[in-house]
């Protein structure tokens, strides 16, 4: 008495239905994780919170970002940067989760099952995006608590958060690709060495023109800077933008960068996933 897994009828609609079913199941699994491990979630938020306190209260008093004197308006400048940085660092969480699923054999198990194997990747993506939205919301509340305000309209504010998630969404593909590339969870932990300069060599805490020339140029063109500057504009926070193209057209750059990142890393991630059988 053997039981067959029901095969979706070969119609497009049938396959789509089961594919969505699989995505939903995997996203549900991710939520159970979140629910079961609230502590992990808090740890993940711990880093940006510590950074906020450090920069705003320790270094911030010495920073003159608006040209009006040290410490002036630094909270208004740094908070959007903090949002952008949290999104930028997020890909390490994705990479870590993917590396763990691979190392623990979970990916193999799923690949030997009749389900849509893309569910591992797409489910991860959906879950991480939702995860990031929760991160942002908590940070938003903390920002309000330390006196940060958005001067933009409701829609501008909402748009700023959408732009943040847009960056995070694109970086998920980077995370998936890296997670499949690294040898295991231990190596995935080292990815922070990439995330750190990626997040910090940007306009997140310091305007690029306060940096040495070459570093400032890198920072100005960093996708994270584009997002940070764009949301500063939308929030009506101090901008301190230089003369480079992405700083002058921050909103455009913040929309385009994630497209470029996705165009490069989505195919890489898919190919890497397909080649797991090598």
């Amino acid at each position, binding site marked *: *008495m*053997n*039981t*067959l*897994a*029901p*095969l979706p009828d070969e119609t497009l609609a049938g396959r789509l239905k*089961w594919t969505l*079913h*699989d995505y939903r*199941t995997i996203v*549900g*699994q991710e939520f*159970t*994780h979140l629910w*079961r*491990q609230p502590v992990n979630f808090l740890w993940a938020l711990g880093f940006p919170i510590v950074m906020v306190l450090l920069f705003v209260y320790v270094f911030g008093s010495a920073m003159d970002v608006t040209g009006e004197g040290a410490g002036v308006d630094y909270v208004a400048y740094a908070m959007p940067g903090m949002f952008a940085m949290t999104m930028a660092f997020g890909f390490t969480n994705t990479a870590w989760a993917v590396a763990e699923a691979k190392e*623990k*054999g*979970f990916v*193999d*198990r*799923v*690949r*030997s*099952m*009749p*389900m849509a194997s893309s*569910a591992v990747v797409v489910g991860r993506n959906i879950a991480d995006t939702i995860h990031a939205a929760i991160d942002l919301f908590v940070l938003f509340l903390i920002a309000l608590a330390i006196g940060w305000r958005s001067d933009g309209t409701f829609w501008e504010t909402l748009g700023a958060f959408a732009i943040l998630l847009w960056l995070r969404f694109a970086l998920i593909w980077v995370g998936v690709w890296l997670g499949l590339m690294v040898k295991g969870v231990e190596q995935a932990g080292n990815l922070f060495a990439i995330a750190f300069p990626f997040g910090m060599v940007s306009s997140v805490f310091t305007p690029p023109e306060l940096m040495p020339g070459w570093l400032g140029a890198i920072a100005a063109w960093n996708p994270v800077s584009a997002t940070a500057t764009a949301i500063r504009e939308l929030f009506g926070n101090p901008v301190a933008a230089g003369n480079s193209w992405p700083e002058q057209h921050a909103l455009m750059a913040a929309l385009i960068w994630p497209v470029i990142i996705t165009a490069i890393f989505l195919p890489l991630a898919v190919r890497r996933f397909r080649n*797991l*059988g*090598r």
Partner: protein
Amino acid sequence: MTTTTVEAVNLGKRYKDTAALDGFDISAQAGTVLGLLGPNGAGKTTTVRILTTLLRFDTGSATVAGFDIARDARQVRRRIGLTGQQTAVDEVLTARQNLVLFGRLFRLTKARARERADQLLDQFGLRDAADRQAKGFSGGMKRRLDLAASMILAPQVLFLDEPTTGLDPSGRREVWDAVSGLAADGTTVVLTTHYLDEADRLCDRIAVIDHGRNLVDDTPAGLKRRMGADRLEIVAADPADLAVLHGIVAAVADGETATDEGASSVSAPVKEPVAALTAAATAVRDQGLTVADIGLRRPTLDEAFLELIGTTQKEGQQ
């Protein structure tokens, strides 16, 4: 009528400079248990990963449950279950949540997935731990959960890579019962193992593999038969008696008599085991000797295995 549900011909798989599989053949009939037996690095896991569509191969072809693994991977996946060498459960979830999750991914309805989870929790002795996170499970409990997950569908072909490694005796027994039960219901089981008693007990056929090649493919009884006759063995109480005992054993032997000084024992193959034993025992008594032990030793699968592997290693060195 017997049907072949797993058939692989001339499988080859190279990793850079090692040939993991080098022209390997296997075949298993419906409802039977096939054991893959071989030392570390022989190519067992590679074989399982190829047959479960996880790994591409370089040469040869294979069908599982009637479908070509390269061309019809999706059809194959609907009909197989896999427990890999590594335990692959979601440790954050509870045992029950794991089984329901995999049931859902096998596309059972929610109600059916829950019902099946309950059955499997009972069958694998996980009832009491059902609602605890798998993270806190012992290695054996995780392994049992892992096995349960691969049996959700009562698959047509079940692949188990070292299913009982790390299990305690009662855990092994549960696994053996589950495997025998599935086979009795028509599931073909392909399992790898290092335990010869397990292969002896569970498998209808054993394929011995080394360096990615077939050494032997036989029934457990057939493998033992290759080892030849039963042996009569006498263990001396006093090593000084070894020479006399050698004479006694040689008198009834059907082949060369061997003395093992370290174990203070003398042994030889015998043709009529019971007659030889009686004759030797009588001779020992007549000469007024005391011995530590006297008895018949059947060749074990361990010996058959070591002998086979030893032979190829010698060949390899030449």
